[in-house]
Each structure stands twice: as structure tokens, then as C-alpha cells.
């Protein structure tokens, strides 16, 4: 209850109200939820994880294992919040957890009644039988019993901010030691403190309500600032929390220490708490946790409590505490019962060495203080105050063995469980932790690890130092997922890239396809068209008239220097030394393992100048690959590589009418086939802008790629499109592009290839210059497995009915042995029949035979044909 003494952090002149389990209660500004509940005489606030035992408030800080509640309502509800860390605001709504129907009467407590049959690891010993039985029969029940707070049901309406900061000195912990260290620190100084704002220090940026939860390599500290959680929802604006990524020159730790609970039967009853917590509640909040207090162990706080108005009896130890939903008496060593309403545990202290340990800081056991203290190390942060081991030397109170003597309060691990685990051979601390789950609760063992490993040490006639601790890992206290994501939310989790012509595509009702990070037009449906009809229309337009495709996403690399041709000769599988200026050539690129990596056309723009086109998806990878070889393997080659992917916007104009279309807008070059043949480049102007025209065809039709400075990409595209109006020019997307190229047997990297396909497998051996002494991948192509006759080879397939991409191929309808799979499958607009490409074991020798496409329960007969279905003579390429 509230008393006159103490209350440093509260404003007694003002009263605010809040509700706990629908009960309306009052408190003062400055209260935490825990102090407010205690002020209202409420000790029972939750139920334990396993046995659903009544639990109260144990601590006054971040280490709280028991007082977990759900704060807020609806989409703002937050489960498993520690009442000791929640700053109270007017109208706060909190609910108890893990109890049904209520925290006062919880049917789950039945498991507690039968607890003797559920010792540590009981589930490993029963529920045996088939996996099916476990999954369907036993597990669902266990899952319902487990878990703490309710699962959220609505998307999080809040925003989370992220901030990078740099400083010369970072001090973590705003207590006396931390503030003193910060005051004398040099350079930019940042001081982090978990609590509400305190007085500022000159020259120090003080971050309050900020918890450093992890330390990483090279003095990086991650912290989370609770920006608006302490305000009533109506008054909140701005981000809810802010993730701080702080790179420090020097780190000083002042993270304090945690008093440890005592172990005796009934040590988990509401009303049993840490002595230090009771003193904090009195000093900061004017709250006395009981009138008749039993103080066990370290009794140094007795006088303060008496001054606060309590009757205090001190014992060096007790053998048990009794009560049901609140402690009502204890059994003293003299076996006499003593009535009480609170039991305070004056245990020994464990420095908070978590951040010291996250990046390999060592610690040793201090037998006098019975705790682990950090080992100073120049490579580790500097610890000051309690976390450095400057804690009161309190003689540990020996544990009392007996029923319901808990080591891990939240996870219901008793001292008997520790003994059982020892008996069964789980004598490594890590085994102990994993077998009993001690230290795995949401307090991460802050109040259980030391007691657990001390007991283990006793059982083994060893010492805590010899037994050692489990590894300390981030986070120090739990961190909200949303804060970890920061601004990487929704559409921002990965940049979407757009071409200069994007708005035109949107205005023309394009559906888009994700290709890598790029948004590419997929198809342009007209009213009432589905994809199939739209694609057939687009393809026919290209075959019979003229179509336009936005090819701006193609990778483009400027390659210059006296050794440029020699360099190309090493990175492509075919020959590059003899290519006339203004001419283009198709090339295949392998990785060093001989597998096809990318393909595309490269053009000789000048004596020592080339421009390489790569696939959209591989643009960055190809440049990295080339830079890597140039810088690290062949630095003697005089070559410059520069990405110009985004400098050039590119429009494909393709179809029998392509030349007619261009002749309406192009000036400065002769477009006739004689003057400007296939696989050639010309410079010209369109709508006043300089353009490069390339005769490159991915459709089999007469095709021009029109490249211009991306700043004018939209203008040039629109000029071309309006020039095409008389010819019924049709914009087409990636889907039609796929169909058109497939009819010609042209491959798509990543569709016909999957990292296991060689150029020869694709029928591209014509593009391998065997005479060249070396190129990337050459040696690997000579390995035994590359010469096998039964390698999968690309062929065309004519199925009797449509087959899906990814269908597997077998020799006969009933086979399970697979010969390969269907890589591409479409409806041919020119032949008006389904057709496909596939990789088939020794496929080229199977041309003229039939195979079976297998998918679902279907089997479709396919004739194996040459991969080129359309215009095998290639006569249409010149229009």
C-alpha cells in the first residue's frame, strides 16, 4: 500500500486511473504498473508457464520473470509486457495472462496439482508412438497449454524509426557510476539509460527509455528507444520506438547488478519478492509491499522498511513460505510459523555482464561475492560500478530442498528438477538449461542461472566457476520485431526499380512482372482480355505488323581500352578478336565451373570501345564477375569497365513493319538492309535526340533496338509509338517476348538454365571457340561429366495437348525415371498449337521420337523436335 515515506519518482498531487483485469484503479504519475498494483494491494498478477501457479511481482526492474501482462487493446495490445517496466499513464489498460477463466481461478492450475507427474523433460519419456499420433493427438493439447500472452490478431498500426549514431564514448547505464563516467568522458559522448528522463549532463547526449540490447563486432551497440509507449494512445505521435545503431570509439558499461532470489518451498508465492525491489518501491514510489514483513538473508534494508511503517522480522534463512494466492506465513529455522504478508529475499548479487560477454568478454567466479565478474580485457569494454563486480558481499543463503522450491520462476523449474537432470546425466550447464528449460524464460535467466548452476555445482561436488555459465547472447531484454525492421516495411523491404518509360506503361494498362528488382510490363490487356488472349494478340502484331518492348532494364556495360577485345575473348566462350567496328555479336558467358552464367550481344562501338548487353536479372552480377577477374586475375589488361545500364533507355521495335516505322522518325542514317544489316549498329537522331540503333532480334523478325540517353527515354519512346500509329504498332510485354523467342528456340537465362547447364547442353557449341587457348570455364567443360552422352540437352517439344512449365519428362507414360523437364511452354500464335522447350537426357538423339510430359496425375505425349519452331531458315530477320 501507499505510505507517506519515500516516493521520489511519483507526483502525489496528481492522480491517474488505469484498469487491471477490468478493475478500475488509481495511481500517481511516475508510477510503474507494478508499483501502482502494489499500491493498490494487488500482488497476484499472473500465472506461471507450466503449472499455472499464482504469481506476483518479484523485482522492480528489467529482470522481472513473473509479472507479465498484456498492455493495450486491439491492434495496440502487447503481450508479455513486464509490469515493472511499464510507465503508467492515465487510462492504461492491462490484462493478466495465461489464465482461464481468470487469474484468480485458473483451471490450468490442475496441472499444478499433478505436477509430480510432470518433472523436467517429462515429455521426452511419454507420448511415444508414431509421428502421426504425436502430431494429431498429444501435441495440440500441449500447445494449447503452453505459450504466455495471446497472439496478436491485427496488423501493427505503429511506425518504427531507425537511427545511426557515432560517438567517441558510449556509456551504457544511467546510474551513479554511469553518469560519473559520462561526465568526464571526452569527445562526443552518448549515455543510454533504461529509465525515464533524468537531469542532463553538460556535453552528453542522454538517451532515456533506451535499452542497449546487444553488442556486436567493432564496438557496435544496438539499442532500442521507447519513444511513445509511456504516453496515452491519444497523445502519441511519431514513431513508437526507435532502433539505435551506435558505433563507438570506446564503450563504458555501467549496467548494474541483479539481486538473486532465495530458493525455498513456496518462494514463488505472490508477496515473496527481492528485498532490493521492496526498497525501490518504497524509495521511488512510496509503496510498502507489506505491513508484516519477513526479511530473509541480507537484512541491511530492515531499518528503511521499518521507517516506512512496516513491522520487520529478520531471519538468516527460512525453511518454507505458505499461502495460496499470497504469502501468509513462513516456517522459520526454529520450525515455528510466523504470520506475514510479505517475504523479502535478501539474496546475493550477480553483476549484469551480458553486454561485456556478447563479443567474447570473459568472466570468472568470485567466491566471496558468489557471482561471476567480468575479466578486464583491452579488447573489451570498460566496466564500472556494480556490473564490474562492485556489489555487496552477501553470504548466499543455502537453498532449501522441498516441494515447490523454484529456481526458474517463470518456467516452473524446481530445485528437484535440477537434481533430476543431474541424476540423468545432464551435467553440462547447456544440457541442464536445455533439459530443464531453466534460464530460457523471458528474463533469460537473470534471476535463475546463478542459482541453477550453483545447485548443479553442489550436486557435482564442484564449484560454479568450474561449472561455468551458459553463453550470453543478444538481446539483453526482448526487442520488438517492428523496431528491428524499422523503415524496412511493406513496399520498402526491397527497392522496386522503374524504367524511364514506366508511367507510359501504367497509363496504357500494363500488368507488371517482377524481374529481379525491376518492374517490367508483362502484358497489356485490353478490355475483356485475359493474359492468354492479350499475349496471342501481341505476338500476332509482332509477327504480322510491328510491336514495341521496353528493354531499358537490360544490363549494359561500357568496355574500353587497348585490351578490351582480348578481355572479351577471355570472358566469353566464343571469339572476339575479329569484330568490325559497328558490328554486334552474340556471346555466351560461363562461370569457371563451365556452367552457363549469362548471354547477350556485345557491340564494337570503336577500335577500343565495346558495349556489352547482359540479361536484366544478371546485370549487376555480370559486372561484378568482370571487375573481379579484371582487378584480381588480369590486372595487366588495360581495360575500363563502367555500368551504363541506366544511362541508356532502350526500346525494341520489331516486326515486318519495323523499318517502315523507324523511317518515319529516324534521321541521319540509311535504314536499308544493305546499308544497315542485321547485327550492326548505327548512330542517328529521333525527335532531336541522339540515339543508337542496333539490329538485334530476339523475336526472329526484323528488329531494331533504339537506345537513347535515359533522360529522354520517355520522349523517344512516345515519338516511336506515335510514328507507329499508322502501322497499328502494339506494345508487348515480357510474356509475349518469351513466346516469340521460344518459337525461335532462343533461351532465357534462368529458365532454360539453372546453374547446371553447359553451352553444349543448350545446343550452343557453335558459340564455343575450341581453338582459343583459354576462356573462363574452358577447362571445366573438359571434365568427364561434361562429356557424358546422356547429358540433358535442349530440344523442342510438340505436345498433343497443353503442358505446364516444370512438367517432368519420362520415356514412357508409366515411368518414374525422369529424363528431364519442360523449361518453357506456350501456345504458338503462328502455328496455333501448344509447343514447349525442354532439357532432355541425350535429347538431340531423341529428335523424331516421342516422350511423355508428367505433371500431377497427367501424362501427355510429346514429339521431340528441333528447338527452332519458327522460320528455321531465318529469312524474316531482314524484313
Amino acid at each position, binding site marked *: 500500500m501507499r505510505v507517506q515515506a519515500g516516493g521520489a519518482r511519483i507526483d502525489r498531487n496528481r492522480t491517474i486511473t488505469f484498469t487491471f483485469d477490468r478493475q478500475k484503479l488509481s495511481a500517481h504519475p511516475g508510477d510503474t504498473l507494478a508499483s501502482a498494483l502494489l499500491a493498490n494491494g494487488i500482488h497476484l498478477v499472473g500465472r506461471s508457464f507450466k503449472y499455472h501457479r499464482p504469481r506476483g511481482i518479484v523485482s522492480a526492474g528489467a529482470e522481472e520473470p513473473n509479472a507479465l501482462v498484456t498492455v493495450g487493446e486491439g491492434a495496440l495490445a502487447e503481450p508479455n509486457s513486464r509490469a515493472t517496466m511499464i510507465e503508467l499513464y492515465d487510462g492504461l489498460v492491462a490484462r493478466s495472462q495465461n489464465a482461464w477463466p481468470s487469474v484468480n481461478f485458473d483451471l490450468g492450475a490442475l496441472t499444478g496439482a499433478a505436477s509430480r507427474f510432470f518433472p523436467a523433460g517429462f515429455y521426452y519419456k511419454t507420448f511415444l508412438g508414431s509421428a502421426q499420433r504425436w502430431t494429431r493427438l498429444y501435441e495440440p493439447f500441449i500447445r494449447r497449454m503452453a505459450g504466455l500472452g495471446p497472439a496478436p490478431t491485427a496488423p501493427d498500426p505503429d511506425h518504427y524509426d531507425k537511427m545511426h549514431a557515432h560517438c567517441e564514448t558510449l556509456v551504457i547505464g544511467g546510474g551513479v557510476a554511469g553518469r560519473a563516467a559520462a561526465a568526464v568522458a571526452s569527445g562526443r559522448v552518448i549515455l543510454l539509460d533504461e529509465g525515464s528522463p533524468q537531469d542532463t549532463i553538460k556535453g552528453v547526449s542522454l538517451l532515456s527509455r533506451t535499452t542497449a540490447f546487444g553488442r556486436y563486432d567493432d564496438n557496435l551497440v544496438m539499442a532500442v528507444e521507447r519513444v511513445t509507449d509511456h504516453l496515452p494512445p491519444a497523445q502519441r505521435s511519431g514513431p513508437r520506438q526507435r532502433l539505435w545503431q551506435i558505433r563507438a570509439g570506446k564503450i563504458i558499461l555501467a549496467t548494474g547488478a541483479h539481486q538473486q532470489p532465495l530458493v525455498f518451498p513456496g518462494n514463488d508465492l505472490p508477496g515473496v519478492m527481492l528485498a532490493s525491489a521492496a526498497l525501490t518501491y518504497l524509495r521511488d514510489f512510496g509503496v510498502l509491499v507489506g505491513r508484516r514483513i519477513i526479511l530473509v538473508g541480507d537484512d541491511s534494508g530492515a531499518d528503511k522498511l521499518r521507517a516506512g511503517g512496516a513491522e520487520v522480522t529478520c531471519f538468516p534463512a527460512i525453511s518454507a513460505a505458505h499461502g495460496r494466492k499470497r504469502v501468509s506465513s513462513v516456517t522459520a529455522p526454529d520450525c515455528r510459523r510466523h504470520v506475514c504478508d510479505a517475504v523479502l529475499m535478501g539474496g546475493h548479487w550477480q553483476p549484469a555482464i551480458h553486454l561485456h560477454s556478447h563479443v567474447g568478454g570473459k568472466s570468472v567466479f568470485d567466491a566471496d561475492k558468489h557471482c561471476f565478474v567480468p575479466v578486464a580485457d583491452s579488447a573489451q569494454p570498460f566496466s564500472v560500478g556494480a556490473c564490474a563486480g562492485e556489489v555487496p558481499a552477501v553470504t548466499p543463503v543455502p537453498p532449501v530442498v522441498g516441494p515447490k522450491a523454484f529456481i526458474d520462476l517463470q518456467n516452473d523449474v524446481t530445485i528437484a528438477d535440477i537434481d533430476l537432470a543431474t541424476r540423468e546425466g545432464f551435467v553440462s550447464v547447456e544440457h541442464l538449461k536445455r533439459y530443464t528449460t531453466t534460464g530460457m524464460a523471458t528474463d533469460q535467466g537473470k534471476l535463475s542461472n546463478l542459482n541453477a548452476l550453483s545447485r548443479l555445482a553442489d550436486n557435482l561436488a564442484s564449484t560454479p566457476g568450474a561449472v561455468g555459465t551458459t553463453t550470453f547472447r543478444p538481446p539483453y531484454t526482448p526487442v520488438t520485431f517492428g523496431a528491428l*525492421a524499422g523503415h524496412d516495411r511493406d513496399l520498402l523491404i526491397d527497392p522496386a526499380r522503374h524504367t524511364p518509360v514506366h508511367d507510359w506503361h501504367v497509363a496504357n494498362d500494363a500488368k507488371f512482372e517482377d524481374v529481379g528488382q525491376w518492374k517490367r510490363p508483362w502484358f497489356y490487356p485490353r478490355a475483356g482480355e485475359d493474359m492468354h488472349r492479350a499475349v496471342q494478340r501481341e505476338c500476332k502484331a509482332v509477327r504480322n505488323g510491328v510491336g514495341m518492348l521496353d528493354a531499358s532494364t537490360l544490363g549494359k556495360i561500357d568496355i574500353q581500352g587497348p585490351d578490351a577485345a582480348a578481355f572479351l575473348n577471355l570472358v566469353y566462350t566464343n571469339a572476339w578478336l575479329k569484330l568490325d567496328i559497328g558490328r554486334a555479336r552474340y556471346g555466351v558467358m560461363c562461370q569457371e565451373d563451365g556452367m552457363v552464367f549469362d548471354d547477350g550481344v556485345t557491340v564494337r562501338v570503336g577500335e577500343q570501345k565495346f558495349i556489352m548487353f547482359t540479361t536484366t536479372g544478371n546485370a549487376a552480377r555480370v559486372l561484378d564477375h568482370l571487375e573481379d577477374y579484371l582487378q584480381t586475375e588480369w590486372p595487366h589488361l588495360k581495360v575500363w569497365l563502367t555500368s551504363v545500364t541506366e544511362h541508356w533507355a532502350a526500346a525494341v521495335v520489331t516486326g515486318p513493319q519495323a523499318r517502315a516505322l523507324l523511317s518515319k522518325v529516324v534521321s541521319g542514317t540509311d535504314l536499308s538492309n544493305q546499308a544497315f544489316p542485321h547485327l550492326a549498329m548505327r548512330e542517328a537522331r529521333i525527335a532531336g535526340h541522339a540515339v543508337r540503333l542496333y539490329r538485334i532480334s530476339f523475336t526472329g523478325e526484323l528488329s531494331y533496338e533504339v537506345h537513347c540517353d535515359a533522360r529522354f527515354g520517355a520522349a523517344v519512346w512516345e515519338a516511336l509509338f506515335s510514328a507507329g500509329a499508322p502501322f497499328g504498332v502494339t506494345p508487348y510485354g515480357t510474356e509475349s517476348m518469351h513466346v516469340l523467342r521460344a518459337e525461335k528456340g532462343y533461351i532465357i537465362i534462368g529458365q532454360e538454365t539453372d546453374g547446371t547447364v553447359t553451352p553444349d547442353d543448350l545446343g550452343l557449341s557453335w558459340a564455343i571457340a575450341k581453338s582459343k587457348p583459354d576462356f573462363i570455364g574452358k577447362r571445366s567443360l573438359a571434365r568427364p561429366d561434361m562429356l557424358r552422352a546422356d547429358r540433358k540437352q535442349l530440344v523442342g517439344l510438340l505436345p498433343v495437348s497443353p503442358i505446364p512449365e*516444370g512438367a517432368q519428362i519420362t520415356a514412357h507414360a508409366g515411368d518414374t525415371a525422369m529424363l528431364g523437364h519442360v523449361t518453357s511452354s506456350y501456345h504458338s500464335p503462328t502455328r496455333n498449337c501448344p509447343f514447349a522447350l525442354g532439357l532432355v537426357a541425350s535429347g538431340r538423339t531423341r529428335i523424331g521420337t516421342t516422350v511423355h510430359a508428367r505433371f500431377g496425375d497427367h501424362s501427355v505425349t510429346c514429339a521431340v523436335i528441333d528447338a527452332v519452331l519458327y522460320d528455321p531458315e531465318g529469312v524474316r530477320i531482314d524484313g
Partner: protein
Amino acid sequence: MNRFSAFSLLKEGFNGHRGWARQWRDAVPKARYDVVIIGGGGHGLATAYYLAKQHGITKVAVLEKGWIGGGNTGRNTTIVRSNYLWDESARLYDHALKLWEGLSDDLNYNVMFSQRGVLNLAHNLGDMREAKRRVNALRLNGVDSEWLEPAAVTKFCPPLDISRDARYPVMGATLQRRAGTARHDAVAWGYARAASALGVDIIQNCEVTGFARHGGAITAIETSRGRIGAGKVGMVVAGHSSVVAEMAGLRLPVESHTLQALVSEPIKPVLDCVVMSNAVHVYVSQSDKGELVIGAGIDEYLSYSQRGSFPVIEHQMGALLALFPTFSRLRMLRSWGGTVDICPDASPIISKTPLDNLFINCGWGTGGFKATPGSGHVFAHTIARGEPHPIAAPFALDRFVTGRLIDEHGAAAVAH
């Protein structure tokens, strides 16, 4: 060894559980063993168990540097599945999955293999193409697999957001219903207990420091607990394979990297299956305790520190919350890292070596846990017979010379 059962648990309940004995003997090293397994992780312990059970070789020791199951066995996200693309992989992992289905009974230890189903999401046309190819291949290989359209995906996994305008829209998913999760620690303990009962010596805190060789064979193993003679040696030390192999004079095609994972605070049941996404490298499930178990990516630089870098976690969360917007207010409770050794083709090595009596099992990368029973089973056969088990044969070291790789990341589902 006490037999585990509901009855024995009840019985012990009445005498304060004083009757439970050590789950595996605390063995002291003998002078010589027929087979010495280096590495007391799940794979090593399973190998020892099957050597004893299936091949009658019981003079076996398992040497563990620290505590059994302390490596990747106890650090993974517990996912068990067999939906691999290539025939060789599908056979290996489904062999394991079949053993998983009866493992609790076989070991008399509940490893909590929960067949709650694994979804692999497809976010673009390429994903869909690859996923359907995989489904068709798996079915012909006799492995259960099906394709779900978006509507069916949310029906199977309600908290998943399938809105089409998402950055990574869910365009469908493959589902393997027999797949799921298992209790990782229990697998190590269960195999240790069963192997120990068959006479296998499990020797913890015993670090290998070198090998004594005679000609092309290993005669003895130098350890922190003295020299131990060995007829045959099986090396199963994920993460540290290169280190131990080097002591035997071998170099391997593996690299060691840190793989991170994390769990949320426990909450009431919300996610009843495993969800994996290749494109955004998310894999998530909910444990029986109520924690969301989330796999993060690997750090691309070499590391033996079991300590990951933060950007990996950060990236993970954005992607996870895009798929599960309702998870945003949950909290990360624990994070950790493990050291995985990765092969160039993302497939394991189960193989004889240039040394007559040395056998190696490594390179499982980020996906070893799911294979534990199968890996131990075929490795035991390979050691006992001196010839590879048919399922293990394609995973021999010589594939790196012939070029016959089993490239699972060319078209890989999340390698995990």
C-alpha cells in the same frame, strides 16, 4: 537403462523420480575401438547407433569436444522436410524423413517429430516455375508434394498476408504435408541414450588433437584424454570439418560460415505450420513452447565465431513482417549463431577418403538437421561395409573431380 513410458513416468511420480538413471553412460576412453566416431552431434550419434543396431558393431566410441548436441544439432530451426529437387537429394532426405516417422518409438525417446506441413512460398513467375518443376519431380520420386494457389495457402496458414500489391506477393506455394519440425536436443539425447544402451561409449569433453597414421591408414587418434586406437574412423564435425580433416592431411571443398536464428517470446498458438520463403530468406514456425522460431540468413564471410552480424537479423524482420504483419509487436527473445560448413553445390559429402579407414560426413550447410537419421544410417553402412550405401554414393568426394555435382542452389528452395 530405464524404459520410458507413461507408466514408468507415473511410477516415478510417486517416488520423487529418484529411480531415473543416467540417460547415457559417462564412459571413459578405452585403449581401442573398432570404430571411432569424431563428433557427438546428431549425425555422429545416429551413426554410432546404427553401427551398433544394424551392423552389430558395438565396440564404438563417439568423441565429443564439448557436450553432445552442442553444435548445429542444438542451434538449428528444427525444420524437417525432404522436398529437394534432384533425384539424389530427394532419395537421401526422404530416406531420413521415413526414419523420422518412426524415430520416437525406435529410440524409446520422444523427439516430438511434428508433421505439421511445410509451405515454400512463390513470389514471382520464376519461383512458380521452379516450384512446380519441383512438385512434379518429387511426386515421380514418390515424395509427397503439392502446389497450392494463394487462396489455399491462406486457408492452410491464416496469418499469412497474400495481398497482391505486396512487394513480394504470395503467388502460391508448395506444400509437403509429411514435413514439419522436431525437438532438436531430444534427437541427440535420444540417439545417445539408445546407442549407449547398445554398448557405444559416448565420451564428452574429449577433443581430437591429431592422428597417428601408418601408411595410408589411421591407427590411432590423439585426444585431450589420451591416445585412442581405432580400426575405422568416421569424421562428423560440422562446422569444423576443415580443421579436423587438416589433422589427417586432407583439404575439403567446404567453407565455414555463421548461420543465425532467433526466437520470439512465447505466445499462444498462432502459426500451425512451417513457412519458408526462398526469395526473402524467411523460415518460421512456432514451437510447442509457443516461441516463433525464425531462421535468419548466413554471413557471407568465413567465421568460426558462432556470432552473427546484425544486418542479417534486420533484413529478416522486414521480410517476415511483410508476410506476417500481425507479428510486428512480438519480441525477439533469444538469438544465436552456429557454424555451418557449406559445399560449392550446397549438397553434403558422405564419403570414403584417400585414407583407407577414414570416412567423412560433412558439408550439410544450412540443412543438416533434417537429414540426421538418414545421414547416420547411410554413413554407418558406408563405414561398416567400407563401400558407400547406394543412397550415399552420389555424395562422394570424387564428384568435385568429375564435375558430377548435385547443385541444389542452382534451383534451390531455401537451403535450410
